[in-house]
């Protein structure tokens, strides 16, 4: 078993195996809630995720939301690849160094080619960001 940062469960799956995900990560997938209706992801806020004001950079929170919604789109569609079409994020509150940040993703609707999702990014009981996104499922032609 690979060691996880404090606050990340030992059995959490590393969801950042390559590319930009790995560069900004590690990002983890946690166990589902509500019988699979809520997919959960987490990361531990480190120095390089911060902005000049000492809070987590908006780009990092949006990246985390993008990764968690992308992964959820692939999980529920079974597709190898899904692309972000649109993402809207509201920055509700700041995150701090060392915080364990969690994204809770729900699927609003899935059609043959499109997934509609929402996510709430939280630290404990505090909301940091809410967002809604539209993903395109790559369909073999």
């Amino acid at each position, binding site marked *: 078993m690979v060691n996880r940062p404090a606050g990340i469960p030992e059995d959490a799956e590393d969801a950042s195996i390559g*590319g930009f*995900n790995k560069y900004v990560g590690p990002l983890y997938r946690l166990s589902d809630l509500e019988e699979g209706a809520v997919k959960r992801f987490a990361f531990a806020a480190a120095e*390089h995720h911060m902005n000049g004001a000492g809070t987590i950079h908006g780009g990092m929170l949006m990246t985390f939301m*993008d990764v968690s919604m*992308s992964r959820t789109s692939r999980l529920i569609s079974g597709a190898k690849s899904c*692309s972000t079409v649109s993402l809207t994020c509201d920055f509700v509150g700041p995150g701090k160094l060392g915080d364990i940040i969690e994204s809770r993703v729900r699927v609003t609707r899935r059609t043959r080619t499109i997934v509609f999702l929402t996510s709430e990014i939280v630290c404990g009981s505090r909301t940091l960001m809410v967002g809604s996104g539209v993903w395109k499922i790559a369909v073999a032609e």
Partner: protein
Amino acid sequence: MKPLPAKLSGYTETKLIDPFEIFIGPVFETGAKGARRFALVVDERHVNMRAVLHGGMYMTFADLALGQAAWDACDHAAVVTLNMQSQFLRGAKLGEIVEVRPVITRRTRSIIFIRGDFQVDGETVFSCASLWKILGQD
């Protein structure tokens, strides 16, 4: 540092302060305060498993560039992002240069509305609009 691509001759490196922006940078700029144009050269760190610019990196570059424009618009007062809406039109490939000239749509006493069309060789690949709060203003 790698030499600048020929297309960016005359550009200078944008001075970054946020650790996360330094981590994903550099980015480059040209033009005077209030009319700056920003450029990102897509490198190996920025792409996803399909070797195109990661959505998170698009949004991080957008937050950086539109944030710099917001900062210019309020004479370097402290500003924070309230909301950002992004549309992903197509992927940008390794080595491509993504450019934006942010446009201030409206500025009130406490809120700045900004948008930007991000282009590769004149083709729009990503579009976003963001709202910024000027801290300390009601």
